[in-house]
């Protein structure tokens, strides 16, 4: 493949000149980084590796234009923020220490406690009234960003090479080849839609390229070169559906984007609803190009479900929400993607998203100090941004995680960094602690149930402080002992068929 690249382009790329013609985004403060002196032991080791010089190149592909740009631009800004922080000598707390500790569960009062009762003048502390929900109490960090003692990574400036995938799978393949073969990136962070990931994964595997996929997705990717840092079905579908069944009733109706993500997430929903006493009474798959939903709305009205699982992707499909609201369809909704990623509750007039539930891993409203500090840092750098979604946060902590792993490995050599990543990392992300499980290359996440009300305010009535991505473990995947390069689908697990037969049995 490399022989097909024109000679002059190749040499230009190696000398770093060709980058001018591309979308190269450098973090601010990069110039300072180049002159910084190494302070850590791990870094003196790296200075011995004379071959590793020049900037650390992070290859990054997302969609900054087209149907999926609503997500891509957030992710680009996340990468820019992380790289700026790394170049300024900052890192997120955490290290190869395992899953870390959790807080204690307690009842929460509806209002904060107040001192003194009006009119009495007595110095009494009341308890804030009736306890209206349960949650987890933990010592809250003010912020999780600390000094790394390293400007850049191992004293080298970090550079972002971020071409636009334009929501076009064929272009994604070209760009992935270019980043790997011409730019020779040290790490590839890329992919929104599962179709995009599956389009570039064979290229990644041929080159044994270290690759991070930061999206929420349907799960099942067992690939020795790929690290999946977003949440998957077992972490979101089961908590979300169990809450819906408990609160609104057993009958669900799924509408999903018609590609691998929508199909497989719908399969999870169908298979696992009976486990929590629910049942999927209807399903419809909608092409990404569809933007007119009157037929879909009428079919839902005909089926009369208790709630609707919406797995809608892209700008065209988001039109479902205002159209359904205008047509008077006011059923409770649950999703694994909507609201947390495409911020439909900010883009559409209330009450289009009223009654939306999503067992999210992150969205901008997460009510913790560390997240507020993160949002503040982000908005200082990008004051015009409208929202920070789930995968933007994933991209942010993933790039910090990569920097930490390189520091542990003492080299950007990709095989060494992969080994370093397989050391049981916990990283303190804005969402909470994230644990990268070494054997499956997937992360355990802090999951919160986000609920959108009539006025599009978001609250979090329930949390699950650490849900494992357990399905690949169930299938016996261990990429360290048995490297493989495939995506498992629910059909390969006989238990899915068993669950389906188990209709509406309460567990």
């Amino acid at each position: 493949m490399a022989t097909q690249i024109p000679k002059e382009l190749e040499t230009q790329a190696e000398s770093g000149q060709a980058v001018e013609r591309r979308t190269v985004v450098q973090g601010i403060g990069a110039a300072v980084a180049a002159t910084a002196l190494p302070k850590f032991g791990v870094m003196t080791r790296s200075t011995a590796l004379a071959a590793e010089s020049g900037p650390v190149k992070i290859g990054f592909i997302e969609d900054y234009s087209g149907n999926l740009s609503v997500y891509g631009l957030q992710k680009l800004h996340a990468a820019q923020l992380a790289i700026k922080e790394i170049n300024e000598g900052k890192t997120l707390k955490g290290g190869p220490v395992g899953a870390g500790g959790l807080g204690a569960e307690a009842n929460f009062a509806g209002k904060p406690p107040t001192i003194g009762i009006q009119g009495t003048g007595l110095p009494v502390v009341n308890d804030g009234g009736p306890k209206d929900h349960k949650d987890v109490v933990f010592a809250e960090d003010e912020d999780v960003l600390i000094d790394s003692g390293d400007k850049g990574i191992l004293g080298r400036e970090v550079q972002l090479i971020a071409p636009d995938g334009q929501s076009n799978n064929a272009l994604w393949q070209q760009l992935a080849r270019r980043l790997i073969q011409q730019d020779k990136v040290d790490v590839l962070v890329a992919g929104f839609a599962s179709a995009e990931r599956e389009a570039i994964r064979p290229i990644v595997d041929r080159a044994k390229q270290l690759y991070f996929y930061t999206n929420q997705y349907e799960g099942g990717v067992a690939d020795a070169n790929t690290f999946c840092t977003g949440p998957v079905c077992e972490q979101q579908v089961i908590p979300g559906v169990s809450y819906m069944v408990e609160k609104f009733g057993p009958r669900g109706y799924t509408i999903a984007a018609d590609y691998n993500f929508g199909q497989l997430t719908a399969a999870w929903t169908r298979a696992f609803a009976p486990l929590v006493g629910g049942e999927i009474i209807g399903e419809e798959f909608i092409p990404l190009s569809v933007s007119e939903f009157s037929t879909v709305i009428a079919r839902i009205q005909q089926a009369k479900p208790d709630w609707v699982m919406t797995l809608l992707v892209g700008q065209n499909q988001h039109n479902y929400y205002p159209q359904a609201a205008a047509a008077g369809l006011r059923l409770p909704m649950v999703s694994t993607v909507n609201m947390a990623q495409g911020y439909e509750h900010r883009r559409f007039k209330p009450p289009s998203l009223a009654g939306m539930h999503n067992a999210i891993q992150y969205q901008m409203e997460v009510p913790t100090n560390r997240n507020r500090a993160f949002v503040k840092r982000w908005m200082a750098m990008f004051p015009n941004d409208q929202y920070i979604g789930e995968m933007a946060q994933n991209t942010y902590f993933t790039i910090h995680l990569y920097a930490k792993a390189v520091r542990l490995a003492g080299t950007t050599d990709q095989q060494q960094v992969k080994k370093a990543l397989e050391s049981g990392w916990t990283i303190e992300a804005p969402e909470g602690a994230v644990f990268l499980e070494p054997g499956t290359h997937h992360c355990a996440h802090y999951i919160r149930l986000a609920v959108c009300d009539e006025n599009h305010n978001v609250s979090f009535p329930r949390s699950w402080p650490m849900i494992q991505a357990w399905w690949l473990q169930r299938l016996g995947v261990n990429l360290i002992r048995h490297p493989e390069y495939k995506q498992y689908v629910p059909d390969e697990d006989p238990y899915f068929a068993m669950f389906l037969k188990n209709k509406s049995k309460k567990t």
Partner: protein
Amino acid sequence: MDTLGLLASILYQFGTNAAFLLLAAIGLVVILGMMNIINLAHGELMMMGAYIATIVTHRGIPFPLAVLLAFLLVAMFGAALERVIIRRFYGHELGALVVTWGISLIMGQGTLLFFGPFMPSIGIPGGSFSLGAYSFATYWIVLIGVSAILIAALWWIYQNTRFGLMARATMQKAAMAEALGVNTDRVYMLTFALGSGLAGACGALLAPTVSISPLMGQQFVAPAFITVVVGGAANVLLGAIGSSLLLSAVKTPVGLLFGAFIGTVALLLTALIIIRLMPNGVSFYLQRFTERRVGA
């Protein structure tokens, strides 16, 4: 009661599907149907109308006025576009195709640069009402009416005004019209402006129901071209009405029974069959049918 609701629901969807096709196509009916310019920037003209309507509505201007403003501004933009670029490509169909595609790219990406990936949309005006288990959006009922009014107005302009007469003459035989004293240059400009303005107005009308983003226009391009091409060139207005009703009549029941995806497949299949069996479009047969009746 529920049978009544179901009937109303079917009728409502038939209407909304047809109105959507008609609104998506109406600007293209003028530009492709009459001027034979394959205008690939059609979607972006609709996007421009939607942006104008959304921006001014957010500033507190009433929505109907915003639609009117979208019509005027996009028509002016269309006139300027015709003067500067399009008029150099009359008679070069492929050249016009490429140049309008270029314009669409510049408009789409330019909007992305200036306005960012999103703009909060305006809420759908009007409420909803229900019959049995089914509920309906008032706004779509209004849109069905508006699309009928628009097409009737266009018809009236082309049949009953001096401009309409000159336009029809120019489109039929430009040289002869010019010899008879018609300023064909001006007719071309006005026709393109009218088509652009209509695209802008329809974009504005559909704006509350869609998400406002730089590439939103793309979703209208395929339905617009299918409607106009199936309608055929013999009588573009009659064709657009015929084809939107026909395509909706296929899409609605199939969609209801088998889902939106199969509904869209059925629509495309019907378009394919019609273009294969009636290469002159629906309007050719509709016109022949009406002429025969008048003759008899």
